[in-house]
């Protein structure tokens, strides 16, 4: 790669538009994801963050625009080029998306078995190293159905990083987890960035973890990126949309008691 700007950004998204029938899901998205850092894409459900993630992963073809990642424009690349790029990324899905017909260990070893000619012993040690990273060494022989939600997420993370990807995507890491498990996972994401130098993209709506892990935040609303910046910049933002997302909307004080009563009872 030539020039510094190329090496500093891992993913460059320009003028990305996604239409679904007459509905516009993503409206002219521009975003630079810096390499070696954690970028959190936040927003409420329906804001378009999942669609954005699916576009970046090549799972959804955008209507127009470009997504440059690992030297390929994912938006226009052929299936073959997309597959080549995908070998250098890891994705941990929201529910884990582990294959239920296999054990945890087999799940994690699968990419190695499909893409490399490594010795059986090497594959086994590699998968155990990754299992140890997510603190699940004892779960190697468990079936996926036996895992709790938090374990499934950690196993999914181990599978995502088995090929030592340059880029890691994590969909809703802390959704549906108890606070201590969520915090553990947040810490793990930070460790991966620091120790392995990965670029990490996290899509979430959980405010607690956003400000703990993010180097950069992109706030989405109704298919637009409302604002991007460091956590400090975002929390200091005066944009009412962002204030609305950060603090819950205050409850209106009841002025008209009759109207409120009618609202609750349906008025009979």
């Amino acid at each position, binding site marked *: 790669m030539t020039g510094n700007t190329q090496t500093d950004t891992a993913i460059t998204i320009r003028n990305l538009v996604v239409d679904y029938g007459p509905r516009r899901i993503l409206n002219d998205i521009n975003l630079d994801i810096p390499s070696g850092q954690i970028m959190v894409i936040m927003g409420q459900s329906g804001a378009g963050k999942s669609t954005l993630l699916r576009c970046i992963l090549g799972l959804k073809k955008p209507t127009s625009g470009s997504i440059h990642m690992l030297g390929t424009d994912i938006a226009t690349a052929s299936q073959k080029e997309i597959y080549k790029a995908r070998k250098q990324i890891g994705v941990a899905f929201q529910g884990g998306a582990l294959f239920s017909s296999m054990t945890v260990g087999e799940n994690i070893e699968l990419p190695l078995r499909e893409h*490399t000619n490594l*010795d059986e012993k090497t594959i086994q040690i590699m998968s155990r190293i990754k299992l140890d990273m997510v603190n699940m060494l004892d779960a190697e022989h468990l079936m996926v159905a036996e895992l709790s939600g938090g374990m499934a997420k950690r196993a999914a993370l181990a599978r995502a990083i088995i090929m030592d990807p340059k880029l890691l995507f994590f969909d809703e890491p802390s959704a549906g987890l108890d606070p201590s498990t969520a915090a553990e996972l947040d810490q793990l994401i930070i460790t991966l960035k620091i120790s392995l*130098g990965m670029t990490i993209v996290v899509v979430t709506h959980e405010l607690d973890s956003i400000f703990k892990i993010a180097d950069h935040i992109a706030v989405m609303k109704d298919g637009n990126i409302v604002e991007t910046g460091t956590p400090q910049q975002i929390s200091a933002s005066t944009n009412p949309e962002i204030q609305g997302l950060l603090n819950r909307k205050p409850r209106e004080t009841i002025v008209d008691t009759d109207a409120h009563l009618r609202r609750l009872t349906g008025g009979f």
Partner: protein
Amino acid sequence: MECNVKSEFGYDLLELSGEVDLQFSPQLREKILGSLKTGNPLLIDLAKVSYIDSSGIASLVEGFQTAKTSKLQYGLLNISNTAMQVLTLTRLDKIFDLYSSIDQFKQKLQ
């Protein structure tokens, strides 16, 4: 990646350089296991390694286990900062015998 095994007095020295990744770690594994078969202690010099991925580390781990079973000394020399971070993350820094000079390893041999 390049790896050369040199027979020193009383031990083998494996000099490793470049990037150790999925493509080259099978070669590394073969060299390590081959050298251990001769029954000599093995010291692996990682000074010129610019990158090592988990398949490379897995090969080092397998070598260590093999050395242990055949009761041979097995050490890693001049491990770089980045590689060290990976080892720390997987708690392997506590397992391996790490050396910062050849003399240190020789002392251990005696």
